[in-house]
């Protein structure tokens, strides 16, 4: 087994263990219904996190995700009142996301400013733009929205694969292909591993950095479109703080924040683990809201420690 698959293996193990614990504790937990909902409810955040994976693999970070999701929703709702088809407004917003990301990437590379801060400014700009478009929650009433949420592939046993989940899986497949089977993907790993060496080996740093953040913007805008269709509305305070959930999904998925190490597929499991935590809390049902938050924190802690100990025990076995 190669080293690069170790964190993924640990993440998948933790996911399966948590699922097994849920299955043993709660009746009906091990049903396709729960699994389908897990995929659907977390689709938008996993989509956004796929883009973040590229950003983090390159040694950067993107804090504008939650604001982007909120802004895309508000803009789509506004365009809906002007009579736009959600597919058209969605496509426009995805384009906007990519351009916005590319601009952030350009500033990060050209001005040599830390990505954390530039994307934090992006967070303020996008969230502020939400408030400028609308201060209230605006419904998206287009018939396409209900058609989108009604369409599903039955999984048997009452569960279904929703269109959101399907988009997520396609986006994931695209992400895996971009990361591991294109020159751009290799360049991302190279920049994350050692920027200077990458530059010396002829990796076009500026173009690649812009493409990385454009990809991040593309995916978070796509996540925003899915979120808007999923909630059938635009709300200026939607997805506040979700950038941290997305980053945590990437890190739980075994990608190092220092860059250069990680797999896109890990992000799926990182995101699903977080969804599983919420599902477990919901199944428990009797927790007050504050105990639920504490429980989420505790589980996050347990999962991180479990993942670390699985990795280190593998390392030890290899060494002996």
């Amino acid at each position: 087994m190669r080293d690069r698959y170790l964190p993924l293996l640990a993440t998948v193990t933790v996911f399966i263990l948590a699922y097994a614990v849920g299955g043993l504790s709660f009746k009906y937990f091990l049903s396709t219904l729960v699994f389908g909902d897990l995929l659907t409810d977390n689709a938008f955040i996993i989509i956004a996190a796929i883009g973040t994976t590229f950003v983090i693999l390159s040694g950067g970070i993107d804090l504008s995700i939650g604001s982007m999701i909120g802004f895309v929703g508000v803009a789509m709702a506004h365009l809906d009142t002007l009579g736009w088809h959600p597919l058209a407004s969605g496509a426009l917003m995805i384009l906007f996301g990519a351009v916005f990301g590319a601009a952030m990437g350009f500033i990060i590379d050209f001005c040599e400013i830390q990505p954390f801060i530039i994307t934090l400014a992006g967070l303020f700009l996008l969230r502020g733009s939400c408030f400028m478009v609308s201060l209230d929650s605006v419904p998206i009433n287009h018939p396409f929205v209900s058609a989108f949420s009604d369409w599903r592939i039955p999984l048997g046993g009452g569960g279904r694969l929703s269109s959101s989940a399907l988009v997520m899986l396609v986006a994931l497949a695209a992400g895996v292909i971009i990361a591991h089977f294109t020159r751009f993907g290799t360049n991302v790993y190279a920049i994350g591993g050692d920027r200077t060496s990458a530059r010396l080996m002829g990796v076009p740093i500026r173009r690649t950095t812009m493409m990385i953040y454009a990809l991040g913007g593309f995916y978070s805008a796509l996540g925003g479109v899915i979120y808007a269709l999923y909630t059938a509305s635009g709300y200026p305070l939607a997805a506040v703080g979700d950038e941290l959930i997305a980053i945590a999904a990437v890190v739980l998925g075994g990608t190092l924040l220092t860059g250069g190490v990680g797999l896109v597929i890990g992000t799926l499991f990182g995101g699903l683990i977080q969804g599983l935590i919420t599902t477990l809390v919901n199944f428990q049902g009797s927790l007050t809201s504050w105990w639920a938050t504490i429980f989420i924190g505790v589980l996050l802690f347990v999962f991180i420690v479990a993942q670390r100990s699985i990795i280190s025990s593998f390392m030890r076995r290899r060494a002996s």
Partner: protein
Amino acid sequence: MDRAKGTSAAMATLRARLGELVGRPWLWPIVALALILLVDSVVSPGFFSISIVQGRLFGSTIDVLYRGTPTALVALGMAVVIGTKGIDLSVGAVIAIVGAVMTNLIHRDMAPPLVLALTLGTGLLCGLWNGFLVAILDIQPIIATLILMVAGRGIALLIDEGLIVTFRSDFFSAISTGEFLTVPSRILVAAGTFLALWLLLRRTALGLFIESVGGNAAAADLAGINAKLVKIGAYMLSGLCSGIAGVLICGDIRGSDSNNAGLFIELDAILAVVIGGGSLAGGRFFLGLSVVGVLIIQGLTTSILVSGLPPEYNMVVKGAVVLIVLLLQSRRMRGSILGVFGRRRA
């Protein structure tokens, strides 16, 4: 002839001086602050006027200082953590916990100084937990402190039993909203904390230890610095600073609002540290400039308020101005500014 030569020599010295000045880390934050204050004074005449109303200093500049204190305190702790190549996302949650503990203890009729000590102790404890995760368990700081950020508000609500609990305490009101010799006491609290930290970190080798751990933890360890201990200490310091900020915030509203106390303060604090020249890559932090960073952010918020722009515009304007300040700070931008000077001369 000689005169012309003299002038060109003087020009060269001037240019060299200017180049040196432009390269200084403290220049741009202070220029940005001055610009914002200048805009304020244009938008709102009498911005700089300070009067004494009911035995207390009164004026817009005092207001900026007054409102900036909690963020400034948090930013001081954050600067130290960022110096070790860490980050502390839990500061807002720590403020909530500290506020809940303080309110709870006040309701037990405990002596105020004891309440204060236990409250600040709670902040230290929160920092110890973060430090333990980062230094001992070796979890990446952003994720390690995310745990307390998520769970912290739950803990605070647990202590408050889900309610907004209010209290009456002359002692804490005096600390937070009172005044001492006409100066609002919280400004003195912040100034005292700043002075203590500056003496502790910049008049001893501790600050250097922190920067060396942030620059290269392994090398610092080999050089005989206990990197783990330094990191734990940094997070505890941040917890303590958040604790003091929490005391001020809760003393202000005379109650503990666990859902909202210190919400999103981590973003402003991190922003302030970076505007103040701190590097998120570790190894560099400035206490004084971080406070300047806070004043920039607070001055900006105040100027948006006094300019009469609708509040919806707050965040966009803030984001745009922050972006401009950051662009001015970047070395490449400085280079092109210098380039303009050079070309003009030629």
